[in-house]
């Protein structure tokens, strides 16, 4: 099988971002919090991407920030996925009032823009990593729920599911052994899209000052810290912005490729 160029590029960039996130502590040349140069220096041999508003090395902070951004996004999209997919499958298998109640609840949450819901919730809860992951994950699980319910509805009427039911298998068996393996490919592509959504969401929240709090940092927060320099022609704020864009686009390329592969296998379905 030959990989298209865009997929190779996407996989390469995505895995380098992951590598950077995992080994941040070994890769970063300077500390995350201590100034190591002058304020807003341009790129040089010692500071590859220059220094920020109080003289910290941008390249190092970019690596540490990427670790947080990717960690929060991965954790919340995994949460969104396990919860959304499980409840979606359950709704499709059980039907009846269980499905009605869950679907109407999801409709209700999706009737308000996620950013507004998140802002309202975060005005009461303390701002820490756990809360952020939970809020983003729960809001995002509504979208996964809709997709997995629709996918599972198709599968739940298949003869082999009927056979398993007649055999007397339990509900969890049907969900995990019959439906999940057959629904996996469209869901994997969706995971990529949910991950991007989570990256953009946490970055936006941090940019608004309602996400990751100092001394930790993430890419959205770095844009916020360095935005004032832009007016004086200092491009420091553009580096984390570029990183967000690059991560989003490279994961998008991979997700696109998986989606086109799975949909062509199924004769165009699921695209």
């Amino acid at each position, binding site marked *: 099988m030959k990989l298209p160029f865009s997929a190779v590029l996407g996989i390469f960039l995505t895995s380098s971002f992951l590598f950077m996130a995992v080994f941040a502590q070994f890769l970063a040349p300077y500390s995350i919090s201590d100034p190591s140069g002058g304020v807003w220096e341009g790129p040089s041999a010692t500071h590859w991407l220059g220094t920020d508003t109080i003289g910290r090395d941008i390249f190092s902070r970019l690596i540490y920030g990427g670790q947080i951004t990717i960690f929060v996004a991965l954790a919340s999209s995994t949460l969104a996925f396990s919860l959304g997919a499980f409840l979606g499958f359950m709704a499709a298998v059980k039907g009846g009032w269980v499905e009605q109640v869950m679907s109407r609840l999801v*409709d*209700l*949450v999706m*009737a*308000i*823009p996620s*950013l*507004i*819901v998140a*802002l*309202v*919730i*975060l*005005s*009461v*809860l*303390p701002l820490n990593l756990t809360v952020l992951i939970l809020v983003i994950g729960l809001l995002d699980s509504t979208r996964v729920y809709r997709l997995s319910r629709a996918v599972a509805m198709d599968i739940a009427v298949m003869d082999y599911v009927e056979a398993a039911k007649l055999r007397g298998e339990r509900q969890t068996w049907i969900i995990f052994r019959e439906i999940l393996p057959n629904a996996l490919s469209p869901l994997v592509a969706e995971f990529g899209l949910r991950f*991007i959504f989570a990256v*953009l969401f946490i*970055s*936006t929240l941090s*940019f*608004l*000052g*309602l996400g990751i709090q100092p001394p930790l940092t993430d890419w*959205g927060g770095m*844009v916020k810290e360095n*935005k004032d320099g*832009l*007016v004086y*022609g200092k*491009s420091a*704020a*553009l580096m984390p*912005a570029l990183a*967000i*864009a690059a991560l*989003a*686009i490279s994961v*998008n390329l991979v997700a696109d490729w998986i989606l086109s592969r799975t949909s062509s296998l199924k004769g165009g379905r699921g695209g």
Partner: protein
Amino acid sequence: MHPVLKLVVQRIALGLILLLAVSAVIFLGIEALPGDTAQAILGQGATEVSLANLREKLGLNEPAITRYFAWLWAALHGDLGVALTNGIDISTAIGQRFGNTLFLASCAAAIAVPLAIILGLVAARYNGRWPDKLISGITLTTISLPEFVAAYFVIFLLTQVFPIFQPVAMVFPGMTFWERLHAVALPVIVLVMVVLAHMMRMTRAAILNVMQSAYIETAELKGLSPMQVIWKHAFPNAIAPIVSVVILNLAYLVVGVVVVEVVFSYNALGQYLVDHVTKRDLPVVQAVGMIFAAVYIGLNILADVITIIANPRLRHPK
């Protein structure tokens, strides 16, 4: 009752129920979360006595349901309460800012809507060839960018590389219309970028969908030029889906506005909301959140109603 009228009334009624449910979520859901308004105002060092006094003053000892209906009743009469942090009447504070937000959003819509439809038409006309691929490629990239990232690229490009605009959008009472327009130019460009991609892609999809119909083939076979086919036969039939696409994206604009206002320090509703989330000023957050949700739901209802009215099969039942 005419069937279309019935459908429309049903849809609006459903929307109103949804709005009521959303208000309950925003009020009661927040109450259910761990956290204490009185504690939030006074901070960690507050004594038991002062906490109890403040709870009494804010009416926090009443059951949540009672407070919800009192809040809803007052809100329906235009009274949104006062801000916890500075005691200013929320309705007054919102009035002016809401106008500013609407001004920004409508400027963006006035540019984005016609542009998206024209680009969508062009992309559908040259489906699969280079104009389509170029337009699709660019819009795919802008979709992957969050609003604030797009905003800073635009700021850097248009204030530093090509110094044409000011990086902050200050509006104040007494400015003429043209001064205002000039002030909001940059945020408008960013918002157009953000919604244009979705709008254009969905317009293109709507037209391509219609293009598969038999009457389009007839029109092609009788010798009309491709642009004539699109303009005379495909476009009128695609109007309903396009209008609903446009309105759904205007609803999306409502959210984009929040972030863009913060980027450009534009004194309007989104900025006001984010400020008061930071200050943990719950009444303001609930009121503004409710307004954003209402606009969003309202636009969604409008999109559905237009789709219903635009359908000739529903308008002229057999």
